[in-house]
């Protein structure tokens, strides 16, 4: 079954240009000049703004002195996915957003790109910085191979645990491999970091769905503790008539294709509508444009001010020539011969602000209009995948499906710990890493570790500050 009209194919090198790194790797010269701009702040606000508390001035200074191995060590000790984070972190909202340079009236230091520069050095040269700790005889299973699990597993392996990761996908990495815009990172980049974790002796078993391929009983028998890092699931459906027509996609389903297929093989309509205005919606519309779609609409019930996407993500979509239909609500997907031909929408008016201060949209009577498209993508958020945990005694799920945990990331069943999107409801890679590491510390304490690792490692200067 084909789309009614597909986007014209582009020459292969055009796809590569369209999906080229938006923050390309720095040359040594660029890195040194940028690193030299860093003031080497004390108790640096950039570090405080990083969920994994990477000692930013320390790693930047090491780039300046040519000690790239040491620089990468500072980064990876705090965040084993430091390379990915350098590429994919919303740095404007995190470290770079807090950089003192803003107050100085200058460009913030390009922390993310410097971070990637340093870690690339050890990855390119296959330098092994970390080793598995001497075995403590304890075994831990991690469910899911996304950032949360990888970070948790790496910590545990360094401390001497035998760790096995179970993941239902073909290849590891979770959304870091399958979900993030291709112009930020490619699947192969994510896999380089998975290797870092594997090098610590962590066993990674793909195509193994826990609860189906392997039972909880079996896992509980084999392992002393279990970490849950299953992330979120499929995109919510729109609940509109016509949603079963061919050409209606979930955001994840569409984006995943751009990560695992050759760009010219990804199916995309000549005209595309994406519903939603979060960061995922931005990834959808930019991908559609870069794949060659001629008209791409972003459809949002509220106004520009309420848009949840980060500002610079919005800018990206604007620069890609996406058309924004604000205060527009879809009412039905239109089709002919089972394929999408358009989207019927109504205009909305913004009413009183809701609990989060966002004005709620009210449809305007008799304002229906039709947008002619060949493809409709829903980007209204991901649903949970935690249902399979209901069989585990003690684990509690919230209404939205997130796993309830205490401050040590322990669930209602003491043997189970959880972190990442499945517990926080969906944040960023760097949050999943920070939480996965925190869960490792909680788990270590619960298993009776003689070392107190509950507090994150910090240098004395910082302790003095806190």
């Amino acid at each position, binding site marked *: 079954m084909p789309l009614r009209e597909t986007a014209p194919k582009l020459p292969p090198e055009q796809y590569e240009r369209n999906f080229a790194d938006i923050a390309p790797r720095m040359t040594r010269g660029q890195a*040194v000049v940028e690193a030299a701009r860093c*003031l080497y702040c*004390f108790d640096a*606000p950039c570090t405080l703004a990083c969920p994994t508390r990477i000692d930013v001035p320390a790693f930047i200074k090491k780039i300046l002195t040519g000690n790239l191995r040491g620089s990468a060590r500072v980064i990876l000790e705090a965040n084993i996915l430091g390379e990915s984070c350098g590429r994919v972190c919303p740095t404007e909202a995190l470290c770079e957003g*807090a950089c003192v340079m803003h107050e100085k009236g200058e460009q913030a230091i390009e922390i993310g790109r410097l971070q990637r520069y340093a870690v690339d050095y050890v990855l390119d040269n296959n330098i092994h910085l970390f080793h598995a700790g001497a075995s403590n005889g304890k075994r831990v299973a991690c469910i899911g191979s996304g950032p949360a699990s990888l970070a948790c597993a790496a910590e545990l392996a360094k401390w001497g645990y035998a760790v096995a990761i179970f993941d239902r996908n073909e290849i590891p990495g979770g959304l870091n491999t399958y979900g993030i815009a291709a112009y930020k990172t490619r699947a192969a980049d994510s896999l380089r970091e998975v290797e870092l974790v594997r090098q610590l002796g962590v066993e990674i078993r793909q195509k193994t769905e826990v609860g189906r391929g392997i039972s909880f009983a079996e896992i509980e028998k084999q392992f002393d503790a279990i970490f849950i890092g299953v992330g979120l699931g499929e995109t919510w459906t729109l609940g509109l008539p016509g949603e079963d027509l061919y050409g209606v996609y979930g955001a994840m389903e569409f984006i995943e294709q751009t990560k695992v297929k050759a760009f010219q093989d990804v199916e995309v309509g000549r005209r595309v509508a994406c519903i939603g205005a979060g960061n995922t919606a931005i990834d959808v519309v930019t991908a559609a444009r870069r794949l060659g779609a001629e008209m791409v609409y972003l459809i949002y019930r509220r106004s520009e001010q309420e848009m949840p996407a980060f500002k610079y993500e919005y800018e990206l979509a604007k620069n890609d020539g996406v058309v924004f239909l604000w205060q527009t609500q879809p009412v039905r997907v239109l089709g002919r011969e089972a394929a999408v031909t358009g989207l019927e929408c109504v205009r909305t008016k913004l009413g009183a602000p809701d609990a989060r201060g966002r004005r709620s949209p009210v449809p305007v009577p008799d304002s229906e209009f039709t947008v002619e498209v060949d493809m409709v993508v829903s980007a209204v958020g991901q649903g949970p995948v935690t249902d399979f945990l209901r069989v585990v005694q003690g684990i509690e799920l919230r209404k939205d499906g997130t796993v309830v945990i205490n401050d040590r990331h322990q669930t209602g069943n003491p043997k189970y710990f959880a972190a990442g999107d499945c517990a926080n409801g969906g944040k960023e890679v760097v949050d999943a890493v920070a939480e996965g590491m925190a869960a490792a510390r909680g788990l270590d304490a619960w298993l009776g570790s003689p070392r107190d690792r509950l507090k994150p490692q910090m240098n004395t200067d910082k302790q003095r500050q806190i």
Partner: protein
Amino acid sequence: MADLRVKFCGLESPNPFWLASGPPANTAGQVMRAFDAGWGGAVWKTIGEPIVNTTSRYGAIDLNGVKVMGFNNIELISDRPVEDNLREIYEVKKRYPKHLVVASLMVESKRESWHEMVRRAEDAGSDALELNFGCPHGMSERGMGSAVGQVPEYTEMITAWVKEAARTPVIVKLTPNVTDIARIAAAAEKGGADAVSLINTINSLMGLDLDTFAPRPVVRGKSSHGGYCGPAVKPIALHLVSSVAKKVRIPISGIGGVGYWNDAAEHIALGAATVQVCTAVMHYGFRIVEDMVDGLSQYMDDHGFRSIEDFRGRALPNVLDWGDLDLNYKIIAEINSDLCIGCQLCYVACEDGAHQCIAPHSAAGNGKRNVNGKGVHVPRIIEEECVGCNLCALVCPVENCITMKEVETGLPPMSWNDRMRQLAAGHGRALPPTPGEH
């Protein structure tokens, strides 16, 4: 419009900016292009029996990506025959009669050799002679350059020999590689020198390649000490110029670390009548003189100086011995929290590197936020503790954010020397001078 013309030993130079003896003043082609670009004079690359140079021969210090903060060389004097150099001086003078060409000379320490060289250089039409008693490497081992300039008696003697033959002004170029440069300057003056120029380069070793342990500049894995110059040496040059200016009555040509008009103005305010430039030209070319001329005239106009003489040596009376500084003058640091960006460099500098007089940003903070709503960590000066060393103001990356404000001590000015005199006369108490001070 300020008049930049200067008189130096009776010679008129269109402006005080001269090329120093070195690679930029190696050939007639270069010197003529330099004059076209606006240089007032040129001291020719030192002429003597031709030598053979090494490759490589230059080294540089970069600081955090900024190139050539300091420069060094292990180059010797001109590698071209004496006749070629002299013929080219003749040609340049013929075409640029209003610009000054100074022949820099170095010959073996024999009276006849010096007489011979002086005669030849003057016959070629050079306006003045500069005696290179400063070169710290290569030539000194052969009994020339700084081997002469480090010994007052030799300096005086050879200057006197040259004066026996010279009809044009004789400038003695001084080496900084001595304990008391003013003594050498005085010896030159005594030998009859019409002027001195300083500084020549400073003995240095630029660093190592830490894989091969080859020093820089590398000559087949080895190196030798060389002469240091460029921006890094200006403070040393300024100190030495001022101490020579206080000692001798003959004019001074200031050299060392001049790259901008303000560097030149500093040399002049400390007593130099002209300035010479080498490294900055080697880095950026002759064109830099345009802003030197423009910037200096602008500065002079702004300050109402009509000629260089109007401010030459103005700063000299302010350069005192430490013992004459006022110990009852007190300043303390003040942070402008509107300008503060929250880097806390002042805090860590004072806490670890000075006198523990700044309190770090507190958890509560002062509520300052940046454009993204993130907290700005403004530290606080503990005024009662501040000793006024001004380290914080030096490290603060924001201009005018930390200023040093004067506090009234209510005490009359008093220097260490005043105090010693008072004590000797039976007045005053022993230290500490004021209660509570430490």
